[in-house]
């Protein structure tokens, strides 16, 4: 079997676009889906994770726990189908929403549950004295979280947040199931059209690996920037994908 990398220069049948250009467009979609979902996951995850540690609000804690269990125990693919097929049927107002937005919410909420879990663990790993110190300063609960607990907790959980961010990028591949024109969708379609599966898959796999590595480096940069001199954080065991 011989290589045929020129397949990328062939026209993809849509008129004037090569497979290479198609793949670059697809990479753009992958990055857009992952990037938008990342913002949602971080904001919602930080909020839900914080709620789970509130000292005097058992109902908020319970609701946040339900959120985490709900979004963590249903496969992402099923969640994407639910957002894409079921939600617009239950709420007819949502029928006009583009599938890109639905997938971003599905991926964002799915990841938010995992991030919330990390945020909770990070907050609870802080010595109780930190919270008491905030109270002793006369801080309100909000102020304690804002100025004492969260700045420490987020520094501690940066390594697991890095792997969750990389997971999110990889999980964006599941968007193929509702025909988002991202990399995996490109791989499947181009493989079928050109019968040059190995070349196509190698290129797509490479782009995923590059993207994941870039996320890794970006987070490492952030980690270094926000590091408190002399304060060393031990990394935990990460699972999942």
């Amino acid at each position, binding site marked *: 079997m011989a290589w045929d990398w020129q397949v990328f220069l062939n026209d993809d049948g849509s008129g004037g676009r090569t497979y290479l250009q198609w793949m670059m467009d697809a990479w753009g979609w992958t990055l857009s889906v992952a990037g938008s979902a990342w913002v949602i996951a971080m904001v919602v995850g930080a909020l839900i994770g914080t709620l789970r540690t509130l000292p005097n609000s058992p109902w908020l804690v319970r609701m946040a726990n339900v959120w985490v269990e709900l979004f963590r*125990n249903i496969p992402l693919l099923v969640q994407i*189908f639910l957002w894409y097929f*079921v939600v617009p049927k*239950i709420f*007819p107002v949502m029928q006009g929403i583009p599938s890109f937005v639905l997938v971003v919410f599905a991926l964002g909420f799915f990841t938010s549950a995992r991030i919330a879990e990390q945020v909770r663990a990070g907050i609870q790993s802080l010595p109780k004295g930190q919270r008491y110190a905030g109270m002793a300063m006369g801080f309100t609960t909000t102020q304690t979280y804002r100025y004492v607990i969260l700045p420490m907790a987020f520094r501690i959980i940066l390594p697991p947040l890095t792997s969750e961010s990389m997971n999110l990028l990889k*999980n964006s*591949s599941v968007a*193929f199931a509702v025909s988002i024109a991202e990399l995996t969708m490109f791989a499947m379609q181009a493989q079928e059209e050109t019968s040059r599966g*190995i070349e196509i*898959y190698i290129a797509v796999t490479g782009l995923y690996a590059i993207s994941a590595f870039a996320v890794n480096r970006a987070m490492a940069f952030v980690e270094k920037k926000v590091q408190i001199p002399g304060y060393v954080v031990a990394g935990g065991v990460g699972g999942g994908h």
Partner: protein
Amino acid sequence: MGGLDLTFVSWDIISKFVLGGFMFSVNLTIVATLGGILFGTVLALMRLSGIKPLTLVATFYVNGMRSVPLVMVILWFFLLVPLITGRPVGAELSATVTFIAFEAAYFSEIMRAGIQSIPRGQVHAGQALGMTYSQNMRLVVLPQAFRNMLPVLLTQTIILFQDTSLVYAIGAYDLLKGFVTAGKIYGRPEEAYILAAIVYFAVCFGLSVLVKRLQNKIAIIR
């Protein structure tokens, strides 16, 4: 509620469409967990062996698998396995091979952490008793590492069970596909997705409660 009717499903439909798919998902989970732990432990031992070529190969394999989306790995194997074996293989068999190979990378990281969590004194004690490397691993280190990591391994299994739904990419008949097929035939696709979600949730949540209990039990003994 937009005219959803979850009552369309009957025992007849379940046994005809869903049960087979459910059994496939469960089987795939069990086989991939056992195979993945076995292969993953070998990878972990290779990485910790101190023999450079072995370490390099294992590290490359684990990091490679972990930097690629599972869907792509599933597609890769579906494309490559027939090329290697020279004859077409079914989506189900291809999925099984894929999941063992893919999950091994994740299980190996867990086993590596488990092995490293065993105090050096244990290894030295084994050596002092005149144990060979394999005896030391088999009788002293691995049983403890496995036991310490049991909750993490089981949590990974729950994730694995959810991941089996991704065989959708190559059209294997699993739990999700069972529901989707039934939904299509009876004209109730939305309800089918909801029911699938409920079943996945029940299994995964149930298992995670069990894992939490197990974790507490182990914590008390130690």
